[in-house]
């Protein structure tokens, strides 16, 4: 990547911010630059000032998951970074337009990867996201193929993608495709958002899905969705 990915961090715990900064500094390619750190969403400069927003979902003891849709609509690419691992919350946040969900346990391994993927409008599936997708109980959930489910399950179990590839006797590239396809199918659920369109467009460009498949997805999205608690 030629230029830095500009990141704004919303988190009210200085220790967490410090940790994220240290991971960013330790990145050998120095691909990410932090442009703003705020403790509350009201202090944000706006989407023109950052490519990706790292968003803590609990600020000042209050859950702000319902802010995700508004922030996504205003043009932010959001990586939710939260101590919560409740699958229903993860699915809600993805539906609202967040690009990826990284639990604080998996931050060290996956946060930078998720930020870079979001900046490029490419899918990123963390293990907590894989868990939420596997357990999705909603009747309107996207249909996943058997291979997609198997790859997600092994990824959730903690295998590296190379190990998953060996286990399934396929290439690592194909493993990534299975897992990313599952994520892209979710871009068609919930309310429409610019970030989801960008993810779908990029997936078609990358050959991850066929343009014809998007039509099917759109039908899915237009179905009434059961209310989640």
């Amino acid at each position: 990547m030629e230029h830095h990915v500009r990141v704004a961090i919303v988190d009210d715990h200085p220790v967490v911010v410090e940790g994220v900064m240290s991971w960013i500094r330790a990145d050998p390619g120095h691909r990410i630059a932090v442009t703003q750190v705020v403790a509350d969403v009201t202090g944000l400069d706006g989407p023109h000032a950052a490519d990706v927003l790292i968003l803590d979902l609990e600020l000042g003891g209050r859950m702000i998951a319902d802010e995700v849709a508004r922030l996504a609509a205003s043009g932010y690419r959001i990586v939710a970074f939260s101590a919560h691992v409740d699958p229903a919350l993860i699915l809600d946040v993805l539906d609202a337009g967040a690009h990826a969900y990284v639990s604080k346990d998996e931050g060290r391994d996956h946060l930078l990867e998720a930020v870079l993927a979001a900046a490029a409008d490419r899918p990123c599936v963390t293990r907590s996201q894989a868990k939420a997708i596997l357990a999705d109980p909603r009747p309107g959930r996207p249909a996943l193929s058997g291979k997609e489910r198997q790859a997600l399950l092994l990824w959730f179990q903690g295998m590296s993608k190379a190990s998953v590839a060996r286990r399934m006797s396929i290439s690592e590239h194909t493993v990534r495709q299975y897992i990313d396809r599952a994520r892209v199918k979710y871009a068609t659920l919930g309310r429409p958002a610019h970030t989801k369109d960008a993810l779908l467009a990029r997936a078609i460009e990358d050959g991850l899905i066929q343009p014809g498949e998007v039509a099917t997805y759109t039908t899915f999205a237009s179905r009434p969705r059961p209310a989640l608690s």
Partner: protein
Amino acid sequence: MTAQTVPGPRPSALLAARYARALDIAVVVAAAGWQLAGAGPLLLAHLGSYSSDRFQVAAWCAITLIIAAGSVLLLRGSSRRGTGWALAAAAGVISTAAAAACPPAQMLETNWSWGTAGWVGVLVLLRRPLAELGVFLTLEALATFAVLARDGLHQPNVAAFITVLAGSTGIQVAISVAARTLHVPAQQAADAATREAEATARQAVADRIRAGRRARWLELRATAEPLLRGLAAGTTDPGNPAVQRACAVEAARLRRLFAEGDDTPDPLLHELHACADVAQRRGVAVDIETTAQSTGTGLPGSALPAVPPEARRAITDLAIAILVNAISRVRVTVTGTADGVIVSLVSDSPAQPDLPASPAGLVVDSQRDQQSLWVEARWNTT
């Protein structure tokens, strides 16, 4: 796991209900018995002397119906003030009317209904405070006395009234007091019987738990005891890594033994946590994740199917083998599927650990990639 042996309904409630029922039946028998064997023959003996025999017979039948209704209510356990008093009032009105329709000079001799109305009061007000029965019996006596006064008061007349009052009302009050007094020892007897039943049930559960623990302890002794003897006698070297691992395995098994006795909603997860404890004390980071693959039923995928103890044993044996060999990290996942459970462990174990033989019903797979070891056990209900 021990099965619950205590039955659903509380024994004290059952026993107390049985004693109370015996008292209820006694009162029903007394009221109905008086109506059939006392009031009935009295009515028959004086047929022809009433101004209207048909009215007296109809009144007798009406009060018989009231007694039947009151008996049904009492035996069904109804204690509502409204219905009880409605029946009592109806009986009071009918009995006063029947008394008023008796031949004026012979009211006390020919009236069958006064005593009967009192018994209705005893029957339908049995579950009410005694004072309510007192009020009813007083009103009933006053009404009858009013009828008597209408015919003209003179001394033999009043003396006869007092005699009848003492005879019938006295017995009715005495029985009501007795029934309420007997309720206290009945409740005590029921409570005592309950305590005994509970103690027996507790003893049975305790016996079974002790037997289960003893069986598991004997099993553990076979492996833990030689190790401890060797360490105590100095024939086993505590510095030997193999001995240290063997100790860790036994420690984990002991923790599992303690965990097996616990009553938890998800014993498999609980036991896995107990096994992980020993590794965590060594500084190994263990995370345990659970999920349930959605079956598309719309139900939240959170409940794991119940895994029988033998299969849990085999799965946790496998987990212990991995956990004691891990260097720094183990990720344990438990995934519920439509027909079973998948338990997987991903760890950084340099050596290939000896995996315990897996029993029937459990499918174990493993794969090693450089430093990382993946082991998966699948248990299916079918």
